[in-house]
């Protein structure tokens, strides 16, 4: 095992003043980990092992991650929505021989491993010097909808490369995120907080948006991040007015002009950026000019260590931040011979900007004509009364499929039937002006909410 020359996560903690993780039920000064532990006496038992981080809460996961980096050979981070039926396959593939769970966790047969260490949402004094100094592999799971998730291998250096190159340490910052830190997007925010010497407000499972926002406001959040769907949902809560972040970040889904404009209107003083990142490709770039899409100049040639090209309309990325491989797989399964990762995110060049239009696998075929649901949603979302929308295929005996839209309105006062008809006509008129005929929804339904998956992305039914 190679000895690490790069710093471990605890090294960053050691150099920071007192900082906190705040969850609804606990507040922990995580900088105490320099002379303490959240793992009882268990850290030494995890040295050199392949560890499954299977905690119930984000807080215990955050503390354990700081302790495990540099100590464990490999950390596999289990997201809260992981399918229990996949555990066996994951444990076998990643040769997992130890698990970290809360002290009071229900015993699960699938998690009976040689070593089990209990974690706590608190820190007790201990000699925290890691018995080993390894270059720990960080393994994240993909959020594919079917089958066992892929296990994506990263290093701390790769995960944090975008952070070190972009943001100087900001001691007064308080980060918050609507993401779970056990997914790539949320993990970036966790790492930004720890490396930047900041505190972090964590969400709890099932915590209502309004309560989360109230806690973010109470802690004086300065940097807040989520997917466009997270943000659309947050904008529907009046409590959003209580927070005043100076930096607003979107990632994980297409940031259309409507959501960027809504956030600009809500936070006129904040800097608002949308980032492109994926579990496999890592963080590729940030866009900070308030416009959807990204400058065409980002493509072709290395920029900030990141090289991008467009192949068959799909964004391909090569950078030191991309994952190294899948566990148990060859690198060729993740990247091409030249090291480019095909993201499957489709772009279209309009003027001097590329715009994301949708996923390669999400295309709806209308009698041979292709539609990306996301490009239709981006148009519908421009209507001033629309908060969010979901475009989906509906079976058609004539063209195989047609597109229909489910729309959430900004105000419930629009519920009178006559007003609804008027709004439908208005939205369809907008679509007809902006889109070719086959992309215009055949029907629009107004719905009270749209499901957002645990990943923070709009839940799209597959198939």
């Amino acid at each position: 095992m190679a000895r690490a020359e790069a710093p471990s996560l605890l090294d960053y903690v050691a150099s920071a003043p007192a900082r906190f993780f705040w969850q609804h039920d606990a507040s922990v000064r995580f900088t105490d980990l320099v002379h303490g532990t959240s793992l009882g006496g268990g850290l030494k038992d995890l040295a050199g092992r392949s560890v499954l981080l299977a905690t119930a809460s984000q807080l215990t996961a955050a503390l354990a991650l700081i302790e495990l980096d540099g100590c464990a050979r490999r950390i596999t981070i289990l997201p809260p929505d992981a399918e229990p039926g996949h555990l066996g396959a994951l444990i076998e593939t990643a040769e997992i021989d130890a698990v970290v769970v809360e002290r009071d966790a229900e015993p699960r047969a699938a998690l009976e491993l040689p070593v089990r260490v209990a974690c706590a949402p608190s820190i007790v004094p201990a000699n925290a010097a890691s018995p080993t100094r390894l270059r720990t592999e960080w393994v994240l799971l993909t959020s594919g909808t079917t089958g066992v998730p892929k296990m994506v291998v990263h290093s701390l250096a790769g995960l944090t490369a975008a952070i070190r190159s972009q943001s100087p340490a900001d001691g007064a910052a308080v980060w918050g995120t609507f993401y779970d830190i056990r997914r790539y997007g949320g993990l970036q925010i966790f790492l930004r907080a720890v490396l930047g010497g900041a505190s972090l407000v964590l969400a709890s499972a099932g915590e209502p948006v309004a309560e989360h926002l109230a806690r973010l406001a109470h802690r004086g959040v300065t940097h807040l991040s989520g997917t466009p769907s997270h943000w659309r949902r947050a904008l529907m809560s009046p409590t959003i007015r209580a927070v005043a972040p100076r930096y607003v970040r979107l990632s994980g889904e297409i940031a259309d002009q409507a959501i960027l404009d809504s956030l600009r209107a809500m936070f006129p003083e904040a800097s608002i950026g949308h980032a492109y990142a994926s579990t496999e490709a890592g963080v590729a770039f940030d866009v900070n000019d308030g416009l959807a899409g990204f400058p065409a100049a980002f493509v072709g040639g290395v920029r900030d260590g990141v090289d991008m090209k467009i192949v068959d309309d799909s964004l391909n990325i090569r950078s030191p931040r991309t994952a190294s491989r899948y566990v148990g797989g060859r690198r060729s399964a993740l990247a091409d011979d030249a090291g480019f990762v095909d993201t499957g995110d489709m772009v279209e060049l309009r003027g001097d900007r590329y715009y994301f239009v949708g996923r390669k696998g999400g295309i709806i075929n209308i009698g041979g004509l292709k539609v990306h649901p996301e490009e239709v949603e981006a148009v519908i979302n421009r209507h001033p009364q629309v908060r969010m929308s979901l475009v989906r295929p509906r079976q058609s005996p004539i063209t195989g499929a047609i597109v229909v839209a489910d729309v959430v309105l900004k105000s419930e006062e629009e519920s009178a039937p006559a007003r609804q008809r008027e709004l439908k006509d208005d939205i369809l008129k907008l679509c007809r002006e902006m889109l070719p005929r086959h992309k215009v929804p055949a029907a629009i339904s107004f719905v009270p909410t749209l499901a957002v998956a645990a990943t923070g992305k709009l839940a799209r039914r597959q198939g």
Partner: protein
Amino acid sequence: MMSVKLTIMQQMEQVAQEHGKILAPLKDDLVLANSGLDSLGFAVLVARLEDTLGVDPFTAAEDAFFPVTLGDFVKVYENGAR
């Protein structure tokens, strides 16, 4: 309650207008292929009719069959809606 036939004719006019198509006079013996609506127009029409009449008789049917004339088209719905 509006008759099935009248609903269909109104929706055809609506879809034709939205799609910028000129509709032929709507008589029972009008051949649908000459009606002015193309296949996308019919796909949208069938979806709209499913919303207003509560039935898509073509997708529900066991055999792939699509009527030739407007009169036949209306009959399929009248039978399906019953």
